């Protein structure tokens, strides 16, 4: 089975802090990590490869330093890695990003299954996975918490919903986005770490994947950001700087009665 995984490098959101004066992000010195949901996609791909044999190819679109997440993916069991990197991709929204990834996948070649994490922890849109399926014109299964293969061409999946889950059958090739419930990602093995040291990451530019210039980057993005601002808040805003008995009693009264 040829499995392709799409991953993303994101800022470690537990570390991103806000500058209290300007209300802007302080990203300096914040680590970049692999998108947490992607670990589950990688683990699932490696499990499937262990069962059916084949190859796991990992791909990411990002600046040069995004290659770090590809190395990490290789330590976890991916065989081949591609970095989709080109200034022409800058400013891409989810439409342009999924277009570029789909074009890269077409360039890479045959595949049976594309796995993605449900969403990235910086954008949280969950749009790129299904977007890739739409660009490639193949079926999708979103929010997958379980995959059972009837054979190499057909799977039965659980897709999480607000009420529980839907069970669906789906023929390959297709795209699946996975949630945390699907598995427990393994730790990197020594073998994986050694392999990553030797791993060659292949870089692909816009021309390599024959991307249509009008469909990538800022120009290719149907959506535009027109304004960035700090959130408004018009709350009463009474903050007590001490926790004396008097203050605690006041708060208790608010909880009981709904007012001071």
């Amino acid at each position, binding site marked *: 089975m040829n499995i392709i995984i799409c991953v993303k490098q994101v800022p470690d959101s537990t570390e991103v802090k806000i500058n209290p004066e300007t209300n802007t992000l302080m990203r300096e010195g914040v680590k970049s990590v692999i998108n947490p949901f992607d670990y589950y996609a990688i683990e699932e791909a490696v499990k499937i490869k262990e069962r059916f044999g084949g190859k796991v190819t990992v791909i990411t679109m990002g600046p040069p330093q995004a290659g770090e997440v590809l190395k990490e993916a290789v330590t976890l069991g991916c065989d081949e890695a591609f970095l989709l990197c080109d200034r022409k991709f*800058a400013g891409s929204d989810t439409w342009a990003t999924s277009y570029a990834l789909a074009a890269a996948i077409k360039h890479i070649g045959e595949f049976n299954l594309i796995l993605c994490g449900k969403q990235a922890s910086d954008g*949280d849109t969950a749009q790129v996975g299904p977007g890739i399926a739409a660009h490639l014109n193949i079926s999708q299964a979103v929010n997958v918490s379980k995959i059972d293969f009837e054979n190499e061409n057909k799977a039965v999946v659980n897709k999480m*919903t607000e009420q529980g889950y*839907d069970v669906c059958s789906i023929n390959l090739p297709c795209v699946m986005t996975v949630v945390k419930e699907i598995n427990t990602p393994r730790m990197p093995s020594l073998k994986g770490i050694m392999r990553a040291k030797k791993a060659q990451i292949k870089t692909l530019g816009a021309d390599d994947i024959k991307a249509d210039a009008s469909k990538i980057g800022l120009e290719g993005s149907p959506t535009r*950001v*027109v304004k960035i601002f700090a959130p408004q808040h018009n709350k*009463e805003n009474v*903050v007590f700087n001490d*926790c004396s008995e008097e203050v605690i009693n006041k708060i208790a009264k608010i909880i009981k009665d709904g007012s001071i």
Partner: protein
Amino acid sequence: MAEILNDINKCTGCGECINACPFSAISLINAKAVIDSGKCTLCSSCVNVCPVSALSLSESEKKKQSNFDCKDVWVFCEQKDGVVMPVTYELLGEGKKLADKLKARLCAVLPGYDCEQAIEKLKERGVDIVYYVKHELLKNFNDDYYSETLIELCKEYKPEIFLFGATSMGRAVASRIAVKLHTGLTADCTSLDIDEEKHLLLQTRPAFGGNIMATIITPNHRPQMATVRHKVMKEADINPLANAQVIVKEYGANLFSSNAEFVKSVKEIAETINISDADIIVSGGRGMGSKENFSILEEFAKTIGASVAASRAAVDSEWIPYSRQVGQTGKTVCPKLYIACGISGQIQHLIGMQSSKTIIAINKDPDAPIFKYADYGIVGDALKIVPMLTEILKKKD
């Protein structure tokens, strides 16, 4: 290829752009702003704040906004077994405001089968038209069937705006439709408005993984699509006397080809209280320190009749199950009272609870962002304060 340019003749080196940049891509070199193109994402925050208009976004040949032959505000009606999901009514409430500003019609779009009851419920909510896309294969959700039929409907009737609930179904189908129709889709909008001058939908959502909001537009593609979470907007009023035109579309087999097939739906055993519907919520974050400490919140919640919820940090640390997570990747809640204990108040958490009527925050850090959004706050250790509150409130009964 687009890039941000700085006219150094105009640039005064004031540094406003540096403060505004969410990616720390700008620095002052020789007292002029210089942009690191390796970090710049072309978001244009700097362009918007430059007091002397020295910064600009250069693009090759900006497309002129076409005159679109489209109208009306559409709302996707998610139904399960013929029952309309509540988020739909909220979208209709918001949709009505948008339609009024555009002087357009509000249309409910309902794919399904045996949905006659649902149609009656939709009529009561101020819609002008119900498009009932009727087919037995639409009874249960299938990504392909839903996308293809709605795409066909869009091509025929050309909506200006198409709104979806940010549910698992809504997000899956909206993403697919947006790509195939080659149009823009903004996820999890916290507010929607119309720029009446430019006749555009203004879509606002949290951005760049931090405490910043972005307003987004889809200037050159139609329909303008957006998803909105449950409990963010207000439901449309019910008017039992209202009527609406019902247009039934029965598409042919050519639109119903898919590699996927629905097998069954499984309902999980509901938690004793679904936090989405709770009136009072006590929520714990990283500041609670451990799984064991959550028992302090359980005790407190029991005393005041609340449900216990948590921030993403607590769930990621496995102190409490994911079903209790409030926030952008968890649930949106709208209780009368939300008590945040040891929660810093990252925007991803806030958008899950900021429409709570009263918010009380307890946190050791006086600079925690949550204090800006709370009605009342105590700077202190939740682990000490919450048991004290529990004691007092036990006595009050």
